[in-house]
């Protein structure tokens, strides 16, 4: 069933999103927000295929066009709007998600190329009981970020760092986070939070 080509239909796709368990607000977000996107992907020569992605530990069936980036699928098809689109050009990091544990710019990855791989977005970092991960907790405790548009990307990247290096120096953390830009220039505070998070990881 995975590879059946399908013309997109707004109704079937909304139904599928709802059936897929997207929460109500994201369903309505999708409904309002994707007029242009749907027009785009349903242009006459565009073919969507139903594929199943692994996102945040769940299997998510979704109709995906070939020219669709992972950021578009996550935000506008799966309602996972925690992933932000800043530049859409692999230049800012706000769209960062983990693919098999490694930070990637989801704006610059074709969704079809992540089939079979595990995608983790900001929504997937807390454990199922709702307990925040150490980086998220450190951001709350340290009042990190100003406008926080860049926050999901930074938090996802920092989580990957602490998974492989729970005890980074500040410099190592800065290097690991160098692919994430903060328009508010809040880098010091963000690094404070990452260092605080590494303390949480060590203590736990």
């Amino acid at each position, binding site marked *: 069933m995975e590879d059946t080509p399908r013309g997109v239909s707004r109704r079937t796709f909304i139904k599928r999103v709802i059936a897929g368990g997207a929460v109500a607000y994201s369903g309505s977000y999708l409904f309002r927000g994707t007029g242009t996107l749907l027009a*785009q992907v349903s*242009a006459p*020569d*565009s073919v969507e295929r139903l594929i199943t992605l692994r996102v945040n530990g769940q299997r998510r069936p979704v109709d995906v066009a*070939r*020219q*669709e*980036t992972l950021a*578009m699928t996550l935000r506008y098809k799966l309602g996972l709007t925690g992933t932000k*689109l800043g530049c*859409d*050009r*692999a230049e800012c*990091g706000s769209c*960062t998600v983990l693919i098999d544990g*490694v*930070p*990637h*710019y989801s704006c*610059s*990855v*074709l969704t*079809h*190329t992540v089939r079979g791989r595990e995608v983790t977005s900001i929504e997937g970092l807390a454990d199922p009981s709702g307990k925040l991960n150490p980086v998220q907790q450190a951001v709350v405790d340290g009042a990190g970020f100003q406008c926080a548009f860049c926050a999901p990307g930074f938090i996802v*990247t920092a989580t990957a760092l602490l998974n492989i290096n729970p005890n980074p120096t500040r410099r190592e953390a*800065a*290097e*690991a986070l*160098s*692919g*994430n*830009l903060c328009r508010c220039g809040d880098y010091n505070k963000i690094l404070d939070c990452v260092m605080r998070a590494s303390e949480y990881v060590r203590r736990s």
Partner: protein
Amino acid sequence: MSFLPHFKLSRPETLEEAISTLAGASGRAAALGGGSDLLDWMKSGLPAPEQLVALDRIKALRGIREEKRLLVIGAATCLAEIAVADVVIEAAPALAQAAADVGSPQIRSVATLGGNLLQRPRCWYLRSNYPCLKNGGNRCYAITGQNHYHAILGAGPSAIVHPSDCAAALSALGARVRVQGPGGRRELAIDDLYQLPADRLDLEHALEPGEILTDVVVPRARRQERSRFIKVRDRALFDFAVVSAAAWMRLDGLLCKEVRLCLGAVAPVPWRPAAAEAYLTDRMINEEVAIEAARLALDAAVPLEHNSYKIPLARNLVRRLVLGLAAG
């Protein structure tokens, strides 16, 4: 948000399949490495392929192996892997350093070595889809416009610089590339992979339609052979080079027996300053010699209105590299 134009996408598992798909599309298809350059290019509305052939499933294109005196790196190996591979750090340090300095961690995780070498120029007029010479138009906007990051050597009629850090390192290392296409395999020196805009305006490299870059081949350093790459950028991290430089040297004590220098981001191709290389060969390295080599390396430079700063910058990098390699 910018949309990608429509295209067909295939993800073959063998090189043969990829080549036949590319060749069958008679120039309207392109290989897709990590997509970090190609997708960006396509989002800008620049002339785009109608079909993408993703290389990510072709195992033969990935990995680093040793073949006698050579290091053979599959073209679809990502830069993150190359930057930390012990065998690269030991056998070709300049390449490991260049790979580590490309973009950001997220870029290096997807960017393939082949894609890095074949990436298109970053001229902001071109990327903003101005109808310039390289985009089918009849003038170069940079020559008389905002040309801070443009060429000081080898320019004309376009003043692009080649953006690849790895290309500069590989040129200094004397690397070769292996290519496979519908007509079979061939191997060429990395310097022959690139062509000046005066020779060919629409493309920077010499691959024929349907050809895939399969491997990059680097001679492994022997005793007394050293290499290094340095790069200057506007930000401390995560930026293209304003100027970069790489050097490879075979030394006998302080005597330079053989040398290759390459400057990046100063010319439309990785730039080998032949006069400086000839001057250094069979000479004892000291401060004065390094300064003279640096002078010779930039002797032919012709700056545009806003980029004369690149000349002293490049000279200093050459001086530092020459002295640094001699010091060990």
